[in-house]
C-alpha cells in the first residue's frame, strides 16, 4: 500500500512537472498581454504531431535529440508568426483582449479539425524516449518518466534563466509588470508580445512532445490539455508564474491520487472542484495579484 502511494505520488510529480512547463508559458502570455490564448492545447498537439512526423514518416537521424533541436526554432517561428500575423492586427481595437480570445478559440477548433483531416481521426503513438526501468530502493521507476521529469525541470530552469538573465527576458518582465512604464523606458512592446508568444509556444510544444510519447497523439486531445492549463493558470493566480508552478504540481499530484483511488473518470471533476472552491474562497487564486 505504502509503495503504491509512493508510485502514485511520483506519477503525479512527473505529470505536474510537464503541466508546469506548459502552464507557465500560458501564464506568461496572460501576464504580459492580458489576453488568454485558447489555442494553447492545440499547440500541445502540434508538438505531438511534430515529433511523430520527424520520427515515424521521416525517420530523422538522431531520434529525439534531433526532434528537440529542431523544435526550438520551429515553435519559436510558429509562435512569433501567430502573434504577428493573427494577433497583432487586433491590437488596434479597444477590446482587443476579448478579440484575441475569440480568435484563438476559433484557431483551436481549426487546428483540431485540421489534425483530423491531415492525420486522420485515430490516435498516433510515438516511440519512447528511452525504454527500461530504474529501481530506487523498492520503488521501480520507468526511465521514460525520469527523462520527462528531468526535461521538464530543465525546460523551466532554462525559461527562468532566459527571463532573468537576457535582455529580452528583462523586457518581458518589465512589460508584464507595467506595460506603460516599460514603453517609456524604451521597451518595444510589440516585439515583446511576439517574443512572449514565441517562448510560450516553445514551452507547450516541448510539453506536447514529452507527454505524447508517454501517452498518445490524439487529434481531439487538445481540449483536455487546455482545460488543465486553464485550471492551473486560474488556480495559481492569473499572470503569476510562481503560482502556476505550485498549481501545476498540486494538480498533477491530485490527479494521480484521484485517478488511482476513484478512477480516471473523476479526475476532471476533482480538478475543477478544486478550482471552484479556491476561487470562491480566494478569487485571485493562490498567488495572483489583487
Amino acid at each position, binding site marked *: 500500500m505504502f509503495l503504491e502511494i509512493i508510485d502514485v505520488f511520483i506519477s503525479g510529480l512527473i505529470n505536474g512537472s510537464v503541466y508546469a512547463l506548459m502552464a507557465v508559458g500560458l501564464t506568461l502570455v496572460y501576464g504580459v498581454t492580458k489576453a488568454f490564448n485558447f489555442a494553447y492545447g492545440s499547440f500541445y498537439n502540434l508538438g505531438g504531431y511534430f515529433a511523430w512526423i520527424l520520427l515515424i514518416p521521416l525517420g530523422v537521424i538522431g531520434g529525439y535529440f534531433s526532434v528537440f533541436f529542431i523544435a526550438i526554432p520551429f515553435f519559436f517561428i510558429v509562435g512569433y508568426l501567430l502573434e504577428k500575423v493573427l494577433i497583432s492586427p487586433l491590437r488596434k481595437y479597444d477590446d482587443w483582449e476579448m478579440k484575441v480570445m475569440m480568435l484563438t478559440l476559433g484557431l483551436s477548433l481549426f487546428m483540431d479539425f485540421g489534425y483530423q483531416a491531415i492525420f486522420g481521426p485515430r490516435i498516433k503513438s510515438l516511440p519512447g524516449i528511452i525504454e527500461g526501468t530504474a529501481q530506487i530502493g523498492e520503488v521501480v521507476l520507468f526511465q521514460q518518466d525520469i527523462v520527462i521529469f528531468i526535461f521538464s525541470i530543465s525546460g523551466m530552469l532554462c525559461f527562468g534563466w532566459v527571463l532573468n538573465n537576457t*535582455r529580452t527576458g*528583462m*523586457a518581458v*518582465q*518589465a512589460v508584464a*509588470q*507595467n506595460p*506603460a*512604464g*516599460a*514603453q*517609456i*523606458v*524604451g*521597451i*518595444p*512592446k*510589440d516585439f515583446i508580445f511576439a517574443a512572449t508568444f514565441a517562448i510560450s509556444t516553445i514551452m507547450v510544444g516541448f510539453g506536447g512532445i514529452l507527454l505524447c510519447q508517454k501517452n498518445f497523439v490524439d487529434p481531439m486531445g487538445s481540449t483536455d490539455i487546455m482545460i488543465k492549463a486553464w485550471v492551473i493558470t486560474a488556480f495559481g493566480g492569473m499572470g503569476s508564474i510562481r503560482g502556476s508552478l505550485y498549481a501545476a504540481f498540486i494538480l498533477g499530484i491530485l490527479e494521480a491520487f484521484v485517478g488511482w483511488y476513484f478512477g480516471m473518470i473523476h479526475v476532471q471533476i476533482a480538478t475543477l472542484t478544486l478550482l471552484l472552491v479556491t476561487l470562491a474562497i480566494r478569487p485571485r487564486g493562490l498567488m495572483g495579484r489583487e
Partner: protein
Amino acid sequence: MLKVKNLTKKFGELIAVNDLSFEVKKGQVYGIAGPNGAGKSTVYNLITGNYSYEGKIEFDGHDITGLPPYRIAKRGIARTFQVPEIFPSLNVQETIRVGSRFGARGGLDLKHSDEIMNFVGLEEDRLQHTGLLNLLGKKKLMIGAALATKPKILMLDEPMAGSNASEIADLMVLIRNINQQLGVTIIIIEHFMKVLTELTETLLIIESGSMICCDKPEIVTNDPRVIESYLGDSYAEDK
C-alpha cells in the same frame, strides 16, 4: 525643441484634445495646468505615442508624429506617471538600469545609471525593492528611471500629488537641478500653482482639451479667463 501643432484627439464623441498647439523651447521648464479632465495627461499620452491623433508633433527638428512609444523614448522624450509604480519585482538599482538598458542611446551605461541613482538621492536604497519605497522614494525612482534613458525632455505628470510640504520642497529642488545641472528641458503638469509659478517660465492652461492661455506664470495667473475657469475667485483674493 518640441513643437505641437493642431493636436486633436477624439475618444468616440468626446474631444479630449482640441486643436492644441504649443512650443517648448530648449532648456525651459514649461508648465501645463487645468481642471481635472482638461486633457493634460492625454496630451502627454499623445506626445509619447500611446494614442493615435490628428495633428503634428516635431521634436528636435524631426517629425515624430505616429512613432511608437519606445522609439520616441529613444529619441529623447521621457515621462513619469501620476501613480509612481514601476517594476515591483526589481530593486532600485535594477529599475534605473532598465531605463538605461532599453531607453538610452548606446544601451546600458552602468556609470551613468549609478550617477543618476545618486543624483535623485536613492543611493542608500539601491538594493531596496521598489514596492517597499515610500511615496517620495517611488517618485524619485520613476524620475531616475526616466533620466537613465538620457532624455532631452522630461515630462512630469503631477509629481507633487499626494506629497507633504517638505516632500514638495524636496522635489522642487530635484526638478530644478535636473533642468539646470543636467540640462534637461522639463514639461510639468501640476495642480499646485505655487510650484508652477516658482518653477516654470511658461505656463499653458487648458480646459476641455483647448488652450485658454499660454504665457509667463505671473501673467497667466492674473488672466480673468484662467481665474474664472480654473483658479477661482478665492485664488485671486488670496493672492
